[in-house]
C-alpha cells in the first residue's frame, strides 16, 4: 500500500473553511520520467484539499513544472496513482480527459496565447471550447478583461501586448470559466509588484469562491502576501519538508525557496 503523507491535506485556510475537506487532488507514490531518463519526480504522496490555496516552491529544475503538468493533465505519471476531483485518472481513457481539463484553469509560464487571436478571443477560448454561445461569452470576457486592466486592449493581438499584458490575458483565460482547480506556473513573473498584488487578489477571490489554487513561484513576496496559503516544496523531484516548516509563515526560519 502506498505511503500517504498528510503534507498538504490540512492547513489554516482549510480548517477555517469548515473542518473535514474532501481531497481534490490525490497523489500516491507518483513518479514521472521522460523517456528512459532518470525520474524527475519521485514518490510523491500528497492530497490537496478542495478549496485550498497552495504555493509550490523549490529551486529551478526541482520538478515544479513537471508536477504542474501532472496536475493539469499534460502528462500521465509513469508510476503511482493520481486522483482528481474524486476520480482515478489512471482508469480514464484518453477521450475522458477533456472533461477533467475543463474543470482546471492553467496559467502557463510562457503564457501560451494563440498569437493570431485577439486578447478577447484568447480569453473567450475556454468558454467556446465548453460550448458556450457567443451571447454567453461576450459579457464575462469583457468583464474579465476589464478586471485585469485590459478592457481597451480587447482586440489587440498578443504580439502587440507587453509581457505583463500577455500574462494578464493568460490569467484571464485561466479563470474565465471559474475552474475548480487553478494551476499557475510563475504567474507574476512578468508583472510589476502592483499588478502582482492585484493578481494575487484575484486568485484569493477565486479561492474564496471555492477554487483550489496551486501556484508555482519563486516570488517570496507573493507567498508572504498570502498568509493563509500552504507551501509545498520540491527538491530533486521529491516533496520535501513534510514537517510543515515551510508553511507560511514558517514555523521556524527556512532557507530561501529557490
Amino acid at each position, binding site marked *: 500500500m502506498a505511503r500517504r503523507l498528510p503534507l498538504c491535506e490540512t492547513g489554516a485556510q482549510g480548517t477555517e473553511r469548515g473542518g473535514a475537506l474532501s481531497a481534490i487532488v490525490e497523489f500516491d507514490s507518483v513518479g514521472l520520467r521522460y523517456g528512459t531518463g532518470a525520474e524527475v519526480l519521485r514518490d510523491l504522496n500528497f492530497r490537496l484539499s478542495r478549496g485550498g490555496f497552495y504555493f509550490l516552491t523549490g529551486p529551478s529544475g526541482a520538478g515544479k513544472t513537471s508536477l504542474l503538468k501532472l496536475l493539469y493533465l499534460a502528462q500521465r505519471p509513469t508510476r503511482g496513482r493520481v486522483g482528481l476531483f474524486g476520480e482515478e485518472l489512471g482508469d480514464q481513457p484518453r477521450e475522458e480527459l477533456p472533461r477533467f481539463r475543463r474543470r482546471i484553469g492553467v496559467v502557463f509560464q510562457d503564457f*501560451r496565447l494563440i498569437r493570431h487571436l485577439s486578447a478577447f478571443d484568447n480569453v473567450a477560448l475556454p468558454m467556446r*471550447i465548453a460550448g458556450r454561445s457567443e451571447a454567453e*461569452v461576450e459579457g464575462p470576457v469583457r468583464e474579465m478583461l476589464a478586471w485585469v486592466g485590459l478592457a481597451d486592449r480587447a482586440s489587440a493581438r498578443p504580439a502587440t501586448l507587453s509581457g505583463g499584458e500577455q500574462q494578464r490575458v493568460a490569467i484571464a483565460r485561466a479563470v474565465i470559466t471559474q475552474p475548480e482547480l487553478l494551476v499557475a506556473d510563475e504567474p507574476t513573473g512578468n508583472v510589476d509588484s502592483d499588478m502582482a498584488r492585484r493578481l494575487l487578489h484575484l486568485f484569493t477571490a477565486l479561492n474564496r469562491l471555492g477554487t483550489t489554487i496551486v501556484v508555482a513561484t519563486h516570488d517570496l513576496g507573493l507567498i508572504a502576501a498570502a498568509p493563509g496559503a500552504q507551501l509545498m516544496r520540491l527538491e530533486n523531484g521529491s516533496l520535501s519538508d513534510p514537517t510543515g516548516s515551510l508553511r507560511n509563515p514558517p514555523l521556524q526560519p527556512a532557507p530561501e525557496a529557490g
Partner: protein
Amino acid sequence: MLGWLTTPVAERRLLSEGRLRGPTLYVLAIMTFAMIVVAAAGLALSNAAGIVTRGVESRYAIQINDSESLPRVLAAVRTVPGIRHAEPVPEAEMRATLERWLGPGGLGGELPVPALVNVDLAPGADSGAIGRRVEQLAPGSRFVAHQQVVRPLLRSLRVLQWLALSMVALMAAATSAVVVLAARGAFDTHRSTIDIMHGLGATDQQVTSLFQRKIALDALFGALAGGLLAAFVLVVLGGGARALAGDLAGGPPLTLADLVILALLPVGAVILAALVARAAVLVALRQSL
C-alpha cells in the same frame, strides 16, 4: 463526423492560415482535372467497345475466292434459315480497301479479287450450323465472324479502359496521400494552438473539425477549379471525340450516365479529402495525451 460543417465562426479563426496557401487546393485541382479527363476517356472507350461489340455480334462475312460464283452463292445463302440479311460488298469497295494495303494499281489485272458477302444472323441463330451449311453451298469459302476480326481491337479497348480505371484509382490514392501530408503539415504548423486547445479541454472531435473543414474547403475549391477546366477541355475535345467515336463505332462518346459519373468525381474527391484529413488528424492527435 459532419460536425465540421457547423463549426462556429469564432472557432474557425483558430487556424490562422488562409486558403489558397496549402497544397491541397492545387493538388485537388490538378488531380480532379486529370481524373475527369482520364475517366472520360475510359468511359468513351467502354462505350466504343460496347457499340462495336453490339454492332458485330450478329455480323459475319462469307469470303468467296471464286468471285464468278457470287450470284449463285448469294442466292443460296439467302435461303438458309437463320440468315436474316446477306449483302455482297461491291467490287469497287473491295478494290478500294485492298488498295489501302497494296497501293494504287497494286492489284493490277492478274491478282484475283475475292468476293465478300456481309451476313446478319437472326437473333439466336446457330452460327456453327450456318457456317457448315454455307461451306456446303460454296466449297472453299470462309465463314468469318466479324467479332473474330475486331477481337484484338476490342481487347485493346478493354485494356485501355482498365488502364484508365487504374489511373483514376491511382490518382485518388495520390490525392489521399497528398491530403495526409497536407493535414500533417497543417497539424504541425498549428501544433501549439492544438496543445493549448487540448489543455483547455478541447476534444479530438473539436480539433479535428477545424482541420477537416479547412481541408474540405480547400479541396472543394480545388475540385471545382479542376472540374471546370476538365469540362472545358472535354467540350473542346468533344467534337473530335464525337467524330472519332462516330468513325469507330457509330455512336456518341459519352452517355448522360457517363456525364453524371464525371460530375460526381469532384464531389467524391472532396469527400475523400475530408475523410482522409479527418483520419490523418485523429491519428496524429492520438499520439498525444
